[in-house]
């Protein structure tokens, strides 16, 4: 049984008679040591999914309307509050997007770091302070012991995100959810934070769910990537395979809108036309159809489900929810694949990833 098993998770937001169908049935498994990327544009439901798993959706508007989230044999969605609170931080923890706002401005960093330690591990003040010091040290903050007494605004953005990560890993959770952990940081700091996450996953054996809109980020960190659109997964594959052989027109669109160093410089970036789907109704057909060049009448009428491709199963499975997957020649034309004559070694972004 996997460590974390999500089945058909659905989340709705209701305000004044209007309902937003934010997440419409996503499923995935996570084993210890797994690194999973969830990629999608703003508003596709990726952050909401992570909040829902932890049971911290903004109330009363947000609510989980269906599905199961099973962690270690317990369904998180039906657990009593008290038990769920115990799991949060202790077993599953989260790193937030904006380090400028996700630390409490009136409490010292040490105070915030010891919070989880004292709640979950029953440490006394001294032990907790010592542990907090070594946590800061662990995430690469110099003079860790002294800095415990500092306030968040005395840290730079990157350092604050390190503090946020230290807070999240303080009780050695089994699952770490990182929600756009590098979006608010500049590129060099991004690389450092990603390296830190990679190291932590490797050394602590944590499972990582990395939520981001940045394909470059998942490329470097995640073994497997789910592409999310309008609250559903539209394509899921091992990261290298996804970059080398994308099948869903949306994935292809995302790849085409990222500048590539290895591409022949021949064209402008090609953004995806149109606007994200209005989520105030439940999707009954392919949500991407209005923006899709490959859409057929089937796309407009029936909801595609994830189907396996080329018989690969288990960890290598490549699934796509599309009636008309992008043909190979179009991938070549888009510069995502080299022409077949040159062989299959393509896909610059997906190449370096931890085994």
């Amino acid at each position: 049984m996997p460590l974390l098993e999500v089945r058909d998770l659905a989340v709705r937001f209701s305000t004044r008679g209007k309902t937003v169908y934010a997440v419409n049935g996503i499923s995935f498994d996570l084993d210890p040591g797994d690194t999973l990327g969830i990629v999608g544009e703003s508003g596709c439901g990726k952050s909401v999914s992570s909040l829902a798993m932890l049971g911290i959706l903004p109330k009363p508007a947000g609510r989980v309307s269906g599905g199961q989230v099973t962690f270690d044999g317990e369904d998180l969605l039906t657990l009593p509050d008290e038990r769920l609170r115990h799991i949060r931080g202790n077993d599953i923890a989260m790193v937030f997007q904006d380090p400028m706002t996700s630390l409490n401005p009136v409490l010292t960093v040490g105070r915030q770091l010891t919070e989880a330690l004292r709640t979950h591990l029953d440490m006394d003040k001294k032990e907790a302070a010592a542990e907090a010091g070594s946590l800061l040290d662990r995430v690469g903050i110099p003079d860790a012991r002294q800095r415990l007494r500092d306030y968040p605004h005395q840290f730079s953005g990157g350092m604050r995100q390190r503090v946020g990560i230290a807070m999240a890993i303080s009780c050695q959770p089994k699952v770490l959810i990182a929600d756009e952990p590098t979006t608010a940081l500049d590129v060099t700091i991004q690389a450092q934070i990603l390296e830190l996450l990679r190291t932590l996953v490797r050394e602590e054996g944590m499972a990582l769910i990395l939520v981001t809109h940045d394909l470059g980020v998942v490329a470097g960190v995640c073994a497997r990537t789910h592409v999310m659109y309008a609250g559903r997964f539209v394509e899921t594959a091992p990261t290298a395979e996804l970059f080398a052989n994308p099948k869903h027109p949306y994935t292809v669109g995302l790849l085409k809108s990222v500048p590539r160093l290895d591409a022949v410089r021949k064209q402008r970036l090609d953004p995806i036309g149109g606007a994200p789907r209005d989520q105030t109704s439940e999707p009954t057909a392919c949500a991407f159809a209005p923006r899709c060049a490959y859409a057929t009448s089937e796309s407009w009428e029936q909801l595609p489900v994830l189907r396996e491709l080329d018989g690969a199963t288990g960890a290598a499975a490549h699934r796509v929810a599309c009636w008309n997957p992008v043909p190979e020649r179009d991938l070549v034309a888009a510069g995502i694949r080299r022409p077949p004559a040159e062989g299959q070694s393509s896909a610059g972004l997906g190449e370096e990833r931890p085994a």
Partner: protein
Amino acid sequence: MSIAEAEASQLAVEQPSGLWSDAWRRVRRNPAAWVGAGLLLFFVICAVFAPVIAPYGPQESVGSLAAVPPGPSAEYPFGLDEQGRDVLSRIIYGARLSLLVGVVSVAIGLSLGMVLGAISGYFGGRVDGVIMRFMDLMLSIPGFLLAIGLVTLLGRGLFQIMFAIGITTVPIFARLLRGSILAQREADYVLAARSVGTPGLRLLTVHILPNSIAPVIVQATLAMATAIIDVAGLSFLGLGPNDPGLPEWGKFLAENASRLQNSAHLVFFPGFAVVFSVLAFNLIGDALREAIDPKLRA
């Protein structure tokens, strides 16, 4: 230690260490705050050391009964009243009363208002609706009128008066804190604290309250000024503390309003006392507001 290191540690010391020290720095740079603090200090000293400072007792007759009491002189700088009591001494003793009323009534209003506001803002929903409609109801009655009604109902003891004035400030504090908590409740750091399993009550007291309380503190300072005016006003209307000997400034004004034409000093000096004590609190309150208001922060 090299010079650079020495300088660095110096810089670190000067670094502000949070919202409050930041605000404190701004307050210290505000001359109005200094004037207000100076005035307040003056009144506090008068109140605390009244028996030492005042030349005579508050009830002590040093002159004779007079229809037209003598005005200021070298011997009695603020003059005498119709019973021959030293006005200066009575005003100095009066400071005790006014400050006491200000502090106690605001403490009553603040504690009740904060509890209601915190419950309302944190739990929201129906509880919030009920509490806030009740606060609206209270606000729809002019505060001073409400105080008059309560004093009439409860009696004219000093504590009853402070309680009545305190009650009129409850809805202000409750609404202010509720709004402030609503703004913080969904903040990222609260979400982050929830995500590590912080229990609900700690979330409110450790994370949300300290971040929401600034405007309430400003309001509390300003409310003290209002409380002093209110108690003077109640006394002026004959609803002041029923102990006739109490040297209350407002009562002083009320008793001597009819003598304005021939013994103006009996009205001027207690009037000034009220004005300056209120001014002190207002200056401090405004300076605090400027220092804490997020719109004025860089």
